[in-house]
């Protein structure tokens, strides 16, 4: 069971991939099936079970895309 929950406000994402790069659990990736209004494939959780709610993704996100909760 995942200890954390991340929420992506995808409309703000510019696909810089900093969250993906720094996620220590490799839980994030780009959503290649969707394109947001800014024209990017937004970042998303690809493996929610791995999320520990550490908040590193939100820490490195330059665009206030991510909210994180932890148990």
């Amino acid at each position, binding site marked *: 069971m995942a200890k*954390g*929950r991340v929420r992506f406000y995808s409309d*703000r994402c*510019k*696909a*810089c*991939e*900093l969250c993906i*790069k*720094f996620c220590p659990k490799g839980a994030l990736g780009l959503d290649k099936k969707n394109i947001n209004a*800014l024209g*990017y494939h937004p970042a998303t959780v690809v493996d929610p079970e791995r999320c520990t*709610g*550490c*908040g*590193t993704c*939100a*820490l*490195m*996100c*330059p*665009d*206030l895309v*991510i*909210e*994180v*909760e*932890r*148990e």
Partner: protein
Amino acid sequence: MKVVAKRPESLYYKKFHYCPGCTHGIIHRIIAECIDEMELREKTIGVCPVGCGVLAYEYFNCDMLEAAHGRAPAIATGIKRMLQDNFVFTYQGDGDLASIGMAEIVHASARGENITVIFINNTIYGMTGGQMAPTTLIGQVTTTSPYGRRPELTGYPIRMAELLATNEGSAYICRTSVHNPAHVLKTKKAIKKAIQTQMEKKGFSMVEILSTCPTNWGMNPIEALERVEREMIPYFPLGEFKVKE
């Protein structure tokens, strides 16, 4: 579940105009988090630069002013002298602070002006399209140093933190980086310390933050962060250069 990370109250939820992966957004957020955590939003007056940060007043949810190029420390001086108990900060880039605004920043520091300066050093003029900055590294290619910066023509990059640390009026001078999570946290700590310095009326405080400009460096955002560590930190060492007790 408890919330670990969310938008700070001191920022509006407006989308930033910055390029993908530009670290301005990270720095805006941690400044706002510090203001929130220190409960200063209603006492804060920020002064924006000319450069990519020119529109920062559209993002910060507090009283804000927009300055002429390089003049933010003088404007902040005028504000702070009238409102000595408020928190007054400037947000400036390397062209703004270390080139056209050199006189204003040096004298604000020399006077021990009780303001806090957040200095974004990304070794290039971003807003105008990638021209050479006073902090551009030797050999760095920009649109006005197309063959790489050559010291015999344009001299050497300026180390602002070291320079201002020599001023007696400087109370807290620090250089940090935001190229990975650990350094983002260190930067936040430094900003908090700078704010504390001002609120305790100790004098001038500045946090120089090594930042990226993926677009004008011609790199993707991750390569840009790697460049900070590989090329910038060796020339612009991190650390505290002045801490007045």
